[in-house]
């Protein structure tokens, strides 16, 4: 249990856990006690969710910007690009159709 690498890496996981915990508690609190509402709340929840996803990618899935992992970062970014085209396109088209019905 004295392996320095091991405790360093364990602390890394714990740091990620702490960040994710905070990013979870805040939106739940906002909704539970109705501290914000409407558009502002929706945007806050979305930003916190994206932040938490980045935290998970960084601390649990170990994706970073180092050269060795570039190939895989590219894979994820490319997926996000295609998914954004498909999902945002879907919302745009279906939303547009809904307003015209």
């Amino acid at each position: 249990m004295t392996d320095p690498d091991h405790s360093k890496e364990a602390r890394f996981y714990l740091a990620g856990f702490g960040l994710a915990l905070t990013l979870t508690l805040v939106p739940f609190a906002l909704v539970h006690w109705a501290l914000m509402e409407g558009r502002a709340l929706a945007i806050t929840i979305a930003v916190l969710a994206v932040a938490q996803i980045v935290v998970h990618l960084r601390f649990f899935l170990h994706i970073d910007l180092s050269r060795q992992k570039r190939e895989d970062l590219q894979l994820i970014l490319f997926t996000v690009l295609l998914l954004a085209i498909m999902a945002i396109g879907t919302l745009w088209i279906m939303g547009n159709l809904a307003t015209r019905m």
Partner: protein
Amino acid sequence: MSTSNLHPGLNLGDHHGEAHEGAETIVFGFWIFLMSDLVIFGLVFASYLTVANPMGMAGGPGPEDAFDLASIFAQTMILLTSSLTFGFATLAMRHERGRAAIARWLGVSLLLGLVFLSLELRDFAHMIEAGAVPQHSGYWSAFWGLVPLHGLHVAVGCLWLMVMLAQMATLGLIPVVKTRLLRLGLFWHFLDLIWVAIFSIVYLGGLMP
């Protein structure tokens, strides 16, 4: 962290020899699979958002009639903790802490996964009582298409975990078992990531004041 990373996610490290090198191809392939799965989830989310409105609810019950924020919060905490415990299992494997240490952390993760599933099933039972069933409206169809899809993934993850515990016992920590545990770890963390989107969009979005 490690000097030579061959694939995304936590690497076993050079001292694992064959398992480390063999992981390069196999873990990369698994990442591509996860990305394909991500597209499935993304489109189900998009479909959910297109019916999350009064027209999609067709006069039936809405989210506020069926969701229980406290239970969702508990599920979120459990899933997040299980990600941490799985991370410790991966670390124990990476630093060769022995089968027992790995199995202990894996066991904790499995237990948390099963508790999550039972809480989720209890929620679903409440929803059915409240009339929030997929046969009722397009909105509830989309909900039942999305959240149980994640639940199904968690159930598959739990089964996979049991298989891995069995393989650790019968085959030992041979290279192929190690790379399978690496992939299961990615799968487990990936599901947590999907859950972040679910509680933000479906539950918090649905219960927003």
